[in-house]
């Protein structure tokens, strides 16, 4: 297996590509050209790195979770603290990169979709910083369950447009963002938040998120003098996972992606595209999706809005097909339990999305030797979820 992917047309094996209306084809070709040129440009990289360091707070710590390690009775557990970035999740790594690119391309208007609101907040933040107009599409159901993030986006000067079609969640927000982009493509930059969508987005988002894996590699070598045995991350669209995994691609390190099992994969109410889906096209690329026999996209369920999506990035599909990574699921209940566990053992409130990675680590940790190293990507902090966790427990705030 070679590392040089995607190919020139954006394919990861048979996955990826560009499945979009003709109106977007030339703009995507231009976007790819612009991205390839900034990728080689030292001035762009210097500017991005300076924002990542002084504005977003990178590098984020690689934290040895001593009490969690004791609790799990297995491998040595490290947490990559993406929750400590400015805005509280890994999303900022990508939005700073793409917003700088948009600026270079002379675009004045930025649109984005958001599920949990973390990408919306990170986009609104980068847009405020770089003086760009920002419009965020968000499903009505997500607006209900993430009202804190909705108000944060508004405070940052973004316009939040509710999406009432379909399941009223992330999938429908992407549909509306794509329709906006088709209509305003000449002056608008679509800042996609995950490693999904048509080429070059999966590649570009992976590259901007790879800072997570590069830092992790350096930090673990400093702390332990060797590479980790296993990396674990949650997978919705898959940007935080691919960002952690990719720099370790050629190393002898096990990758585990944890999907949202919702009420259980057998219940049909889940968002496990890799574990329970099949190949198809959604939102501009070919990958694993959740679909009916007639090829319509199914509604999903996860109490973690950032994972509540019926598709996944094509590179994860490729890792699955080539068996480079393993993909598993945990349920809402298991993730909630992990949410409480991390809060009480380490004093860290994780995002419900990241809690999926923790929950699976709990299951698998005892199968490792005591001196083996497992790194969990703590992709975001849980402040945004406090309200919905309270609601679930019948606590009125």
């Amino acid at each position: 297996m070679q590392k040089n992917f995607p190919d020139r047309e954006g394919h990861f094996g048979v996955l990826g590509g560009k499945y979009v209306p003709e109106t977007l084809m030339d703009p995507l070709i231009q976007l790819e050209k612009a991205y390839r040129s900034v990728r080689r440009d030292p001035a762009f990289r210097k500017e991005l790195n300076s924002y990542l360091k002084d504005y977003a707070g990178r590098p984020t710590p690689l934290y040895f979770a001593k009490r969690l390690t004791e609790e799990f009775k297995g491998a040595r557990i490290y947490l990559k603290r993406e929750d400590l970035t400015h805005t509280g999740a890994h999303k900022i790594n990508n939005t700073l990169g793409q917003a700088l690119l948009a600026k270079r391309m002379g675009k004045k208007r930025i649109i984005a979709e958001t599920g949990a609101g973390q990408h919306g907040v990170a986009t609104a933040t980068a847009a405020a910083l770089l003086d760009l107009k920002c419009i965020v599409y968000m499903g009505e159901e997500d607006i209900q369950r993430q009202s804190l993030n909705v108000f944060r986006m508004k405070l940052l000067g973004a316009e939040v447009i509710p999406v009432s079609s379909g399941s009223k969640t992330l999938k429908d927000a992407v549909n509306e963002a794509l329709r906006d982009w088709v209509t305003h493509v000449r002056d608008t930059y679509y800042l996609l938040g995950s490693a999904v969508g048509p080429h070059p987005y999966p590649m570009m988002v992976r590259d901007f998120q790879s800072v997570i894996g590069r830092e992790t590699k350096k930090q673990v070598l400093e702390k332990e003098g060797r590479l980790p045995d296993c990396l674990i991350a949650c997978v919705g669209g898959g940007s935080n996972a691919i960002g952690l995994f990719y720099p370790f691609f050629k190393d002898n390190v096990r990758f585990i992606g944890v999907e949202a099992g919702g009420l259980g994969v057998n219940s049909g109410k889940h968002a496990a595209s890799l574990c329970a889906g099949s190949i198809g096209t959604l939102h501009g690329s070919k990958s694993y999706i959740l679909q009916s026999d007639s090829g319509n996209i199914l509604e999903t369920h996860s109490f973690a809005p950032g994972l509540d999506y019926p598709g996944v990035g094509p590179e994860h599909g490729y890792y699955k097909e080539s068996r480079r990574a393993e993909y598993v699921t945990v349920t809402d209940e298991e993730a909630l339990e992990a949410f409480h566990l991390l809060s009480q053992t380490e004093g860290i409130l994780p995002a419900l999305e990241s809690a999926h990675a923790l929950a699976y680590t709990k299951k698998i940790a005892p199968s490792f030797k005591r001196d083996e190293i497992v790194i969990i990507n703590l992709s975001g902090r849980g402040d945004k979820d406090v309200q919905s966790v309270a609601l679930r427990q019948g606590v009125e705030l």
Partner: protein
Amino acid sequence: MSRINPTFDRLKKRGQSALIPFIMAGDPDIKTTEALVLGMAEAGADIIELGVPFSDPIADGPTIQAASHRALQNGVNLKEVLHMAERLSGIDTPLVLMTYFNPVFRYGLRNFAESCGRSGVDGVIIPDLPPEEAGLWIGEARKVSLDTIFLIAPTSSSDRIRLVSRYSRGFIYYVSVTGVTGARENLPDDLEPAIKRIKEQNKKPVAVGFGISTPEQAKKIGLLADGVIVGSAIVKMVEENLRHPELTLKVKDFVSSFAQALKS
């Protein structure tokens, strides 16, 4: 064998442009769709475009989204649309299916092409399948002489116009506006040079769609292009008369007003 090219040839000799109305199959139900197709054929439609409902129609505006949703609620899917097409294969008017790619992929490219061939479908438009990703599909469609209709948009570069023209059979679909489907009050100013730009590169018929909502607009476009596609305006009429006993008659009259404008 597709009947699309002979249709354009015949109209060209008369100096006329083709009227191509679009409706969503299964909106409000399959039986009504069959009646509407027959009615539109009688009213002077030269080619009929049938939409296949899909859960995530990213190239469509609110009108066609809603129609697609209604059809899905009735349990209509690609298979049923193909069965209906087979029942309609006796009519003289060529039929074109417009479907997003995922239902086709799920159905199987070869299976779908062969079913189209058997059902008498003349051509297929897949708005989210650009020629770059269409190699296998084109291969299967050619085997059963099914026309592959690709789209050109205002944002298409000259390179892309060349590419799309090369792989289009039957006609080339020119998307008149940068945007999603939906009726619009005004036509874009750059339509004439845009069509000229396409015509310079090839001799294939060019039909214009997106936004055309009145017979007057259709007439203007008919002077520039080989075909005029009217979609959302008709779908809107269906939506406003879902339970009306004379729905078919209303749509027939509406389509007939476009035919008159184009043929006069």
